[in-house]
């Protein structure tokens, strides 16, 4: 073949990839910002993940949600070492809560995604969306819980 580009795009060449991981594990923190979201994350915490931690964010402190156990910590402790934060909100979320978490992530330069797990047309979401949009790099509006699972798996959570 006349060029490396041609060789590189063959099926045989593309089967060859250096057989070592091309990334180190990332620390993902999945935050529930209201009781509805906590119920969802409590179930998800029992699935197999690549080290994701599930956190229920309260007014004064946070609880680390793992299957069968919930440990209380501060927001700073909950988000310590995070590479990526996924905020899960519903129409029951307090916008001030979003702002508090968002400010912390911004101050600590943590990549933050918002996942609004509710009917997109719900008018109760309006103030929450304004708050979320101001502090995340990416926002998904989706009522299907499976989409959240898909998103977390795709991000290697």
């Amino acid at each position, binding site marked *: 073949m006349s060029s490396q*580009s041609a060789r590189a795009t063959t099926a045989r060449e593309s089967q060859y990839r250096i057989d070592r991981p091309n990334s180190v594990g990332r620390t993902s923190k999945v935050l529930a910002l209201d009781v509805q979201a906590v119920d969802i994350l409590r179930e998800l915490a029992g699935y197999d993940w690549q080290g994701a931690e599930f956190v229920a964010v309260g007014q004064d402190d946070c609880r680390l949600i793992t299957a069968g156990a919930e440990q209380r910590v501060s927001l700073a402790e909950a988000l310590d070492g995070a590479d990526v934060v996924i905020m899960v909100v519903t129409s029951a979320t307090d916008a001030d809560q979003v702002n508090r978490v968002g400010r912390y992530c911004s101050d600590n330069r943590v*990549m933050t995604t918002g996942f609004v797990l509710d009917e997109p047309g719900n008018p109760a979401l309006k103030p929450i969306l304004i708050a979320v949009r101001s502090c995340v790099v990416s926002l998904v509006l989706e009522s299907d819980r499976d989409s959240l699972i898909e998103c977390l798996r795709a991000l290697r959570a």
Partner: protein
Amino acid sequence: MLRTEVNELLTQTGPGTMMGDLYRRYWIPALLAEELPEDDCAPVRVKLLSERLIAFRDSDGRYGLMDEFCAHRGVSLWFGRNEEGGLRCPYHGWKYDINGQCVDVPSEPESSGFCEKIKLQAYPLIKVGDILWTYMGPPEFKPEPPQFEFARVPAEQTFSSKRLQECNWLQAMEGGIDSSHVSFLHSGNLNTDPLFKGAKGNQYNLADRMPFFEVSKHNSGLFVGARRNAEDGHYYWRITPWVMPCFTMVPPRGDHPIHGHFWIPIDDENCWAWSFDYHPNRALSKEERAAMEAGKGIHCEYVPGTFIPRANKTNDYLIDRQAQKEGRTYSGVEGIAIQDASLQESMGPIVDRTRENLVSTDNGIIMARQMLRKAAKALRDKGQQPPGVDPEHHKIRSVSVVLPPDQAFDEACRDDLTARPGVKHTSV
């Protein structure tokens, strides 16, 4: 990242595969109308969804698309004689009409009825706009013809092209959903390409390389909104619609024609990248059409007589490292179409998604994969018609707009995201 089995489900479109069955429920572009320019013209070989077919236009101007190979002994009907209402194999004279029905077997007596027992697989082929579309699914589920705006405006307002892309359809289509790459890969073209330059929105693109992304569903796919900073605390939104399985539109720039793509599988390792440009309420100018024909914008230059891009993998995409260093192009490859194609082909014929490291701004791609997988499973398990088949789902547009900070794009732009005949597109 995706598990291997999910990657296979999404990328394989041959007969009997789940994604193949999904694709077969839609009208898909098959040829440019100009490839069959007149009655009884030469037939054209077409491979779609891993099926080898022959397309022809008969003596009465009717289009046919059928199995490429004569039922007698497997000769390619590309050598066929297109005459008197059918395609005649030159080997032993077997003749077929546009429905694949054998209408003459010269070696057998007409009274034997032998030819009535011979029928090739054939698919309907219809002209909408400047494209010939085919439907390769069960006849009882054939939908109404497509209603995409670019194919429905008068001929002087629209232009379509296709090019061969030597990789799987999905990694090509994902480039259409991911607008974060524009600020990098295409940055050199925003102020120089005649079909892009001069739009006010370009300055926002170039000034803000970290857009915020918002993904929301609509009834047949997704809206992916990319938000960049504009003046006075406002935001510049570029909103990309994706209609299942593979239609995307690029958000417009100024009064330039709006454009978009389909990515149609040839087989699992190759696809056709279809590109269209149109203006909703005026004719394309002479200069615009000339630019498109010259390979500007999302179109490309070709190896003469083919649909193979002139810059391709055999010549390293004519990469210019000096241009890369000087910032005239970001990757060193010239032209928006080939900038995308070169990188997407370099991923390999079917990219190994088990090795991906996606980030938050890839949420559009993540959601699209999930919707495709769910639709394919729903079709297989419940016979559910996939989203995007209904022609009403095709009446959609991309949008670029500046909004105040507290306005959601999907509410503010509800009408703008709908194709309204004769109404100009919403653009910055």
